[in-house]
């Protein structure tokens, strides 16, 4: 009941006119970003964070806007999957399977509408899950001591590569690099570490700059290398003929997909790609021979879309309750919270209840907005898809420049951002994941602080780190997170590759 009261307060925050306006703007921009091939939700949120700062938004407003961007980007990913057979981001891959055939059969509008409805249902299911589960998890997390937190951070790193990740050791390398960058600056005992006397480094490396550089600038460089896109065949979107019967037909698929997606999102290391994958496979199993999957079955659009959006809301659970993000985009959102001086974690639910519940309410509202935006306005997004990336990416890069510049009004940060972009490009080339680098930057100070507290309590006895049952459990899970990809990863990836018929199987 307490939850309900908070939620009602949350709606009070989220329904404030300016918050509603920013949610709408975020939803629109997010859909746009998600729809453009190459720009995923993580990039989108990363580019818009500095903008949220420069607008001087209140914490809850900034968070509401960027959550809407996040949800919107997950919606938008499907547009290019269906119309161009190019997934806007990885989780939208499964939507290509039946979405594109539907478009080829002249049912593009139906496919888009079905995916919007399924996304809506998936998100709705997952948001309800979030409302029920998050407070419980936050209460549980209150029992964590510094040692447990230290182990929890390790767990976050270990599972970040995800079970579909390629080489878990590269995740470790990436995490170590990120944590090392985090040690630059003056530490809490007042000692200068690795600043080399450069004044700008005294306060450490600003992770917003690192994030924008790693995501936005490296994306530009990658695009130049690949020169993807250009003249794509434009799909004609027919007039929508969707009846209630059609929606009813996909309702079970969407509900199943949403629940599965939510679970995949909450579990560390699973994420939206897995959510949409199992959403699709389950549909195929449940419907069986009666379906015509791969040839434009609407249920093959609804299942993975609901799974994908369910997972993205699910990933907010560990982020909000434990301060440990379950995906790249939630890592970026975490960066936003930290830079707004809000430490995510169980205490946030008591200290910043208005923020948490405002965001959750905004997520619900955002989903309604997205549904309303997506069905009638889909034509606009389709038109915008035809903007050639060779104009778009330079403009996006420029916006990243403006955002970073207007945080501090110095050009030093811009050089830093470009350097991070080049570094990000090299790391991506080596298939070293960027998200652990960011997470290292974000969690480094907290991790060190918890280590310090734990050692203070035990008077320098290292065994305190695995002294409690809970801590041992976390260590075991962290170990599993590193070992499982070696065992399950290849099998899972092969299945996904076979299912989508994309990628290069020998590359695994």
């Amino acid at each position: 009941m307490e939850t309900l009261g908070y939620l009602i307060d949350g709606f009070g925050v989220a329904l404030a006119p300016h918050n509603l306006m920013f949610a709408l703007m975020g939803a629109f921009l997010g859909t746009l970003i998600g729809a453009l091939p190459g720009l995923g939700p993580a990039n989108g949120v990363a580019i818009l964070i500095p903008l949220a700062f420069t607008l001087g938004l209140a914490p809850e407003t900034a968070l509401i806007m960027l959550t809407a961007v996040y949800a919107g980007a997950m919606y938008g990913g499907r547009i290019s999957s269906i119309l161009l057979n190019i997934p806007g981001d990885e989780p939208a891959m499964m939507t290509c399977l039946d979405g594109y055939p539907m478009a080829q059969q002249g049912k593009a509008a139906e496919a888009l509408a079905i995916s919007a409805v399924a996304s809506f249902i998936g998100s709705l299911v997952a948001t309800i899950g979030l409302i029920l589960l998050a407070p419980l998890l936050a209460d549980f997390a209150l029992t964590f001591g510094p040692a447990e937190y230290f182990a929890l951070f390790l767990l976050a790193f270990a599972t970040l590569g995800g079970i579909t990740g390629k080489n878990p050791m590269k995740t470790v390398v990436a995490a170590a690099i990120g944590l090392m960058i985090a040690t630059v600056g003056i530490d809490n005992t007042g000692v200068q570490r690795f600043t080399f006397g450069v004044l700008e480094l005294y306060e450490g490396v600003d992770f917003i700059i690192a994030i924008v550089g790693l995501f936005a600038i490296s994306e530009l460089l990658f695009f130049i290398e690949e020169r993807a896109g250009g003249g794509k065949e434009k799909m004609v979107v027919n007039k929508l003929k969707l009846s209630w019967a059609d929606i009813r037909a996909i309702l079970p698929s969407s509900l199943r997909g949403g629940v599965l997606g939510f679970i995949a999102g909450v579990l560390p290391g699973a994420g939206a790609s897995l959510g949409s994958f199992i959403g699709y496979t389950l549909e195929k199993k449940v419907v069986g021979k009666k379906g015509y999957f791969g040839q434009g079955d609407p249920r093959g659009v609804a299942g993975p879309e609901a799974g994908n959006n369910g997972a993205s809301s699910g990933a907010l659970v560990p982020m909000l309750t434990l301060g440990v993000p379950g995906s790249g985009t939630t890592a970026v959102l975490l960066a936003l919270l930290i830079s707004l001086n809000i430490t995510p974690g169980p205490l946030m639910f008591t200290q910043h209840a208005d923020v948490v519940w405002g965001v959750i309410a905004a997520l619900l509202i955002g989903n309604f907005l997205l549904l309303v935006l997506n069905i009638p306005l889909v034509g606009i997004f389709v038109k915008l898809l035809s903007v050639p990336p060779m104009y778009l990416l330079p403009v996006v890069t420029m916006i990243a420049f403006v955002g970073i510049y207007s945080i501090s009004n110095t050009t030093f940060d811009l050089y830093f951002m470009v350097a991070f972009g080049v570094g990000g490009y090299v790391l991506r080339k080596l298939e070293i994941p960027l998200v652990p680098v960011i997470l290292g930057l974000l969690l480094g100070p907290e991790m060190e602080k918890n280590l310090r507290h734990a050692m203070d309590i035990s008077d320098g006895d290292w065994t305190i780190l695995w002294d409690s049952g809970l801590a041992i459990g976390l260590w075991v899970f962290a170990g599993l997170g590193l070992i499982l990809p070696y065992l399950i990863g290849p099998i899972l990836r092969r299945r996904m590759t076979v299912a989508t018929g994309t990628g290069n199987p020998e590359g695994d």
Partner: protein
Amino acid sequence: MTFNDRIFGVLMIVLAVAYGWGATQLPEPFGGSEAVGPETFPLLLSVVLALSSLYLIVRPDPDNAWPWSRTGIELVIAVVVLVLYAMLLQPLGFIISTALAVGTLCWRMGARPPRAYLVGAVSGLVVYLVFNFALDLALPLGLLSFLEVS
């Protein structure tokens, strides 16, 4: 070919050693040493990085091709444009430097030069107007500062 990971691994081990050595040189904090000093966490990290990099050297993944030749030059051009953009932002002002930077990037990515620079100029102008008038954030005008309305 498995050179990428090996070379990167060696570089990272060098970094780990340098970083670890740097950590041991850190001064003792005011008030004497504690169980976890400023050097403890960095030392842990240097060990983790060294071990995981060693793994990359022993068990490297197959290489991704690097874009030598023309594409590589385009990449260098793009990075140079971005650095120049940062350098010229204040002296030339936001609108002119954006027109040049965005225009050059669009052009190098395959757009026809007149259109590329037009897109650059228009986007620079629009963003400038939005930031200065709608959002009340001053972007530098630089050479165009004579246009400033006080």
